[in-house]
């Protein structure tokens, strides 16, 4: 970024740019907040654990077994996290493709969220790789495993990160006051959005497809050949539910940045309606799959009860709440429904990847405390970076006047 600013503004002294960036590095806002006090020690422990992981191997900090080789870091950080980050492509679709300008005020913050999520999830993925330096093989082609679902997911994932960065880049340009770059980057947005949506649909479904071959390992209630489709559909309302929650937290934390001309309520109701629709579609699909796979026999087992908790408790009930709020708008109900929806997505992804994976194994996998701390560390670092950016760049607040008429 530094370089770019310099080439664009040769007249600006190097000192000026560096000084500006150094100044921006300083913390803004209070340091001794409750969040900081909780997150800092956890992050410190987490970093020590990450060091141990690299100096002694995965076994030193994780409880992974030969039968359950993917644990919390993949099941939560990657498989669940990607669904939570789905809001970025859904909103880009609403605003740019369907031209629903109403959602524009929350677009940037969602894109930023999505980008950071992907950045940190790929970080988590690297932690989990046994031989992380070899990840380069996938890019340089030593070799291309072109029939591998994971290869395709990986590439779509990587390219989507670039698309998200491009979608967000006008905000960076506004921050650096780089007008020429802003014009170029804004012009590229539509292309980035279109490819971003395509890449998203494919990698969201690809995450479901990863588990297709694990047919004998995942409990039949959670394994079916429609998993790719189910994963995309659930990423729509999962992503939007996160947007709702993130928005309500941001409004409290960054209240000074909000411009009250945004119709916050109508945005919220719009999002609730999308969730209700998405969840209805998902439920219909779930029922069809359930009948098609003749899964009724499992319902009387403990696994069946667990399945019903997921589907009825955390998809059906929040859907009803969203529907109710469509008829009689109520912000509290929407927020409760959004939290339940997120829990439902979490349950579903964890069930597929961990809980019902090798459900018959003699030694069950239970994540170690170290795995939890490292996961929290990654989430906290992400939130710190998010906060750093929001306080500096026009993400929630309005763009500077010179950039207004664009896009």
């Amino acid at each position, binding site marked *: 970024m530094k370089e770019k600013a310099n080439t664009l503004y040769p007249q600006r002294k190097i000192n000026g740019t560096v000084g500006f960036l150094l100044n921006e590095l300083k913390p803004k806002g209070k340091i001794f907040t409750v969040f900081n006090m909780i997150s800092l020690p956890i992050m410190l422990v987490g970093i020590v654990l990450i060091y141990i992981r*690299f*100096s*002694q*191997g*995965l*076994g*030193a900090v*994780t409880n992974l077994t*030969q*039968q359950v*080789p*993917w644990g919390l870091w993949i099941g939560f950080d990657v498989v669940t996290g990607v669904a939570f980050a789905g809001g970025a492509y859904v909103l880009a*679709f609403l605003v740019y*493709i*369907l*031209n629903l300008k109403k959602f524009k005020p929350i677009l940037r913050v969602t894109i930023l969220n999505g980008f950071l999520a992907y950045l940190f999830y790929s970080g988590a993925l690297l932690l*989990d*790789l*046994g*031989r*992380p330096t*070899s*990840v380069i*093989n*996938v890019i340089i*082609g*030593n*070799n*291309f*495993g*072109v*029939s*591998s*679902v*994971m*290869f*395709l997911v*990986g*590439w*779509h994932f990587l*390219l989507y990160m670039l698309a998200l960065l491009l979608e967000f880049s006008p905000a960076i340009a506004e921050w650096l006051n780089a007008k020429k770059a802003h014009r170029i980057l804004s012009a590229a947005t*539509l292309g980035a959005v*279109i*490819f971003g*949506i*395509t890449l998203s*649909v*494919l990698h969201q*479904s*690809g995450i479901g*497809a*990863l*588990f*297709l*071959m*694990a*047919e*004998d390992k995942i409990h039949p209630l959670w394994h079916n*050949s429609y998993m*790719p489709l189910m994963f995309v559909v659930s990423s729509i309302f999962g992503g939007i539910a996160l947007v709702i929650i993130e928005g309500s937290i941001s409004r409290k934390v960054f209240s000074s940045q909000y411009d009250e001309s945004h119709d916050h309520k109508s945005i919220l109701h719009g999002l609730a309606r999308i969730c209700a629709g998405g969840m209805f579609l998902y439920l219909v699909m779930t029922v069809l799959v359930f009948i098609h796979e003749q899964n009724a026999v499992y319902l009387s087992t403990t696994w069946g009860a667990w399945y019903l908790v997921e589907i009825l408790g955390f998809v059906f009930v929040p859907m009803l709440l969203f529907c109710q709020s469509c008829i009689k708008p109520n912000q509290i109900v929407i927020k409760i429904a959004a939290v339940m929806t997120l829990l439902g997505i979490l349950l579903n992804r964890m069930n597929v990847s961990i809980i019902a994976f090798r459900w018959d194994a003699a030694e069950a996998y239970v994540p170690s405390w170290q795995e939890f701390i490292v996961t929290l560390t990654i989430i906290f670092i992400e939130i710190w970076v998010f906060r750093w950016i929001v306080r500096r760049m026009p993400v929630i607040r309005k763009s500077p006047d010179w950039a207004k008429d664009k896009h």
Partner: protein
Amino acid sequence: MDINRRNFMKSLGFAGVALTVGKSHGAEKKPEGETEFYGMLYDSTLCMGCQNCEFTCAETHGLEEPEDEPEAGVVRKTNQNRRTVINCYETSQGEAYIKQQCMHCNIPACDTACLTQAMHKTKKAPVIWREDKCMGCRYCMISCPFDSPKFEYGSTNPKIVKCTMCADRLREGKKPACAENCPMGAITFGKRRDLIKEARKRIHDDPEYYHNHIYGEHEAGGTGWLYIAGVPMNELGFDTNIRKKSYPALTKGFIGAIAPVDILLPGALLGIYAATKSPKEEEE
């Protein structure tokens, strides 16, 4: 085949990769019959559980020697230190021994799963693991229906460990070490087709003694290791309900759908974009 494909893919450049994948390469490898694979036939009725195969395997591959013995009621497992185990089961026909290792599937799930082709089905038969390619993602372990690949969790440079059917020895024209050193002749190495014939013959000649099933002939789409025994294989710790088609076939539909979606969806999105864009805004 491998070299050609690699050059082909390289020449496409990376943007093209994702687009052409679905069309030019299905998940399925060459169908069986085209390739004359080698294989191993294990006859449980001949095995007396002496563990010679375990010891010779450990010696050949520089692994720790086994310290425990097969015992009915105890399931020993392969792990990062041993590539094969002999187990003893109490069956309807009395005690019987069974050997376990990677099955060297004809169309292996691990090979298809592996995003760098570190897991690789060679032309002769062995499914090998290539250290210089693997990134340790353990997707092969997720996908293998027999849980064959094992991972060195205690290492900072972990390997995926499993039976390689002594691919190095085969290259030198030798038999796999276990086949050579089994004192009972319970392990036979040869062309897979011939082994199936031999297995049929043994079952045919002694139908009272053998259970009439060759495990691995069709299981998981056909495996390099073939098993015959006096009892059904589920009494010997094997899953007999396993699918008879190959596992990679399960992802074929998805892989095939990627290219069309990659190509068609952007066009559709552009169409919707054009349709929803109000003329008023264009003026603005």
